[in-house]
């Protein structure tokens, strides 16, 4: 009985079910549609109260809780503006979300921070038009920034889409205890002289270290870290002068690869991966498993945290063989924001030299403005954990020697393949370097969908 009736009614039921589905669907859609233009309900016209949202990752040192209290300061002088920061710890996740939001033109903050690894993608053809030209809007003094920092954030047609926050000049941090045990000099000037001018000298110092090394320690933390350090000091990196990916013919990549491979093959490294999530690399700081680590300014904080108070005074900072830049960020303003003009003004203020100095004082970020780098506040800065090392002097000198390289939008990805797949494979699994290089090429060909 049941089957027969259901057979008879099938045609009509189908119609009804379609109607039901469609009507419920429409109700849902309209329900969602009502949400879309919620905004913040604050018109910008005529000094009205507005909220500016700023999206950041990691630590920019602006906030009122642990940073330089810049938001509170700005809100005091601009009573109609309220600033809200949303922070994401993981820079890669931040960028992935930001890309998605840019593509949909929704959910964007009024100001978005950009890491240098992604700046080429942000200035590239797919995204260049999504940003406000901060060279024209907001009144930023572009001349105050390091020239190459401005150039990195400039699009092909001359728009400046991001204002520099900090840079990552690099030094070499070394463990004085281990150096002494391995009969190497411990004084920072002597150590700097040991390898000044050439990464080959750095490798040579590593050989000396290995001959007298305390058991269970290595000269350098990781071949991948050494690769990053060497390539950061090269004028040609992953891209050619036109900003196209050309890592295979790059002299910089070749030099960094060869240096890292020599170190890995010569047992100069502790075979670790930097920032590995299992904390093996972190633990090695505490247990003094390696004597040197390439040390962009932001790395000093990591050493201090990971080596811990029991190792205070053991570490020091020497000049790098060749000056380089590893890291640094920008502030950009998406065009689709409701208060793009006010946001541009805030971005310009946050990245002005005076604010750079305040952030450096609290957070240690090396400023990207020329005057601040030269100012006594930076030049005279010391770090007690490293035995009162004049970090300001060391890092501003390193910053002065930086040769900016052209960057392509695939730099970050190719770097990951080179270090995490190529070099780590040689270092940990003993893969033949020629084979590892072939593997990297295959990975790039297979996975980068150019």
């Amino acid at each position, binding site marked *: 009985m049941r089957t027969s009736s259901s057979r008879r009614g099938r045609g009509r039921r189908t119609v009804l079910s379609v109607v039901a589905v469609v009507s*419920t669907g429409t109700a849902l859609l309209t329900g969602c549609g009502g949400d879309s233009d919620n905004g913040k309900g604050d018109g910008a016209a005529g000094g009205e109260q507005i909220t500016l949202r700023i999206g950041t990752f990691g630590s920019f040192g602006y906030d009122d809780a642990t940073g330089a209290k810049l938001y509170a300061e700005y809100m005091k002088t601009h009573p109609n503006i309220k600033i809200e920061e949303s922070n994401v710890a993981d820079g890669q996740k931040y960028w992935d979300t930001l890309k*998605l939001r840019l*593509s949909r033109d929704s959910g964007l903050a009024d100001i978005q921070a950009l890491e240098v690894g992604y700046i080429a993608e942000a200035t590239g053809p797919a995204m260049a038009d999504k940003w406000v030209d901060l060279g024209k809007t907001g009144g930023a003094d572009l001349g105050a920034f390091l020239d190459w920092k401005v150039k990195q954030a400039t699009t092909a047609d001359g728009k400046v889409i991001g204002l520099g926050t900090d840079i990552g000049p690099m030094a070499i941090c070394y463990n004085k205890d281990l150096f002494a045990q391995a009969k190497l000099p411990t004084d920072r000037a002597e150590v700097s002289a040991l390898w000044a001018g050439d990464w080959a000298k750095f490798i040579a110092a590593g050989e000396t270290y290995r001959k007298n090394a305390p058991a269970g320690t290595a000269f350098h933390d990781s071949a991948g870290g050494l690769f990053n350090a060497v390539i950061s000091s090269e004028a040609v990196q992953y891209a050619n002068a036109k900003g196209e990916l050309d890592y295979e013919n790059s002299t910089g990549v070749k030099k960094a690869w060869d240096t890292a491979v020599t170190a890995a093959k010569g047992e100069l490294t502790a075979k670790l991966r930097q920032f590995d999530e299992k904390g093996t690399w972190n633990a090695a700081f505490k247990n003094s498993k390696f004597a040197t680590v390439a040390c962009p300014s932001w790395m000093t904080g990591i050493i201090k945290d990971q080596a811990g108070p029991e190792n205070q005074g053991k570490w020091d900072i020497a000049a790098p063989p060749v000056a380089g830049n590893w890291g640094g960020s920008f502030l950009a303003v998406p065009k689709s924001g409701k208060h793009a003009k006010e946001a541009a003004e805030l971005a310009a203020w946050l990245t002005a030299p005076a604010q750079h100095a305040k952030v450096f004082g609290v957070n240690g970020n090396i400023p990207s403005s020329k005057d601040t780098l030269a100012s006594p506040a930076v030049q005279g800065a010391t770090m007690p954990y490293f035995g009162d090392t004049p970090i300001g002097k060391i890092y501003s000198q390193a910053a002065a020697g930086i040769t900016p390289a052209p960057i392509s939008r695939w730099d970050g990805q190719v770097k990951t393949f080179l270090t995490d797949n190529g070099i780590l494979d040689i270092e940990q699994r003993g893969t033949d370097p020629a084979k590892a290089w072939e593997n990297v090429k295959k990975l790039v060909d297979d996975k980068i969908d150019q």
Partner: protein
Amino acid sequence: MATSVRAAGDGSAPPAAQAPGAGAGPGSHRQRPSGRSAWRSTLYRLDLKAVPYVFIAPFFLTFAAFGLFPLIYTGWLSLHRVELGGSAQWRGMGNYSALATSEFFWNALANTFTIGVISTVPQLLMALCLAHLLNYKLRGRGFFRVAVLAPYATSIAAATLVFAQLFNTDYGLINTVLGWLGFDPVSWESSKWPAQIAISVIVTWRWTGYNALIYLAAMQAVPRDLYEAAALDGASRLRQFLSVTIPSIRPTILFTVVVSTIGATQLFGEPMLFGGSVGISGGSGNQFQTLSLLMYEKGWVTGALGQASAIAWVMLLLLLIIGGIQALISRSNRNRNRNRNRNRNQRTKAGS
């Protein structure tokens, strides 16, 4: 017809059928319905016919939005070159043919298969033994039954992080113990087979209890008298297990095999977390990269969404094939059972 009867019986309003044109039979009511009654019967019909669909609509809408649409959209994406934020360009079957010649795809497929085998087989065997033990009357049975399920209740992330620490090459407990026993430390992450075995251990640890409980439920449905008869015939417990339990729960075993195979095909969380920072690429030399990891890497790390979608569809295809094989096996199983029952019945009849 039924509607008008029901409407008349409803006491809340004057039955329309008995209004003015009284005397006429129900047939005339049908020809000349008053406006109100027509509305009511329409409403009633709607209530009967449409409302069930409205009630089940949420599921189907959710399914359409989160199941069907992604499936179709992924299929569409897999035929294009897509990047997050950009527009799609037609590529036809290019993504699929690229997979066919990509050694990373075949490597991931092989890894998925090997990790699947070395985790599923021991896992199901151990689950069977566990269930068999739990099926006996033993002290604290309830406790043990809960205990075997505890790993399943643990989150993948928590379990994997603990195991990743145990298997840590430099500081892990396992290598420390191996060192005490005089063995060299095993590089659990960077060598291929140790890494795959370590991942299989995590999977096995987590799912054995779950499968054991499924087996236990099936075993409890096996009639006791079968065991009694077997015991009277002098069958040992092992014999009973092999000749009574296993044949009786064969459909359940098939079910767990299929579910575990599907799980193994989609293996993602364990290798990703076990590998730590190089988890997504399955270790520095892709030595434990599974299909899901490759898909994730393509889609979200390098931004090749079209190729990632192609992998997703290939995985779907694989699972459909597995499902098809399962259907074939269970059908042949059913047929065999039917034949056996028929034979038995005939035998009984012949005997009577």
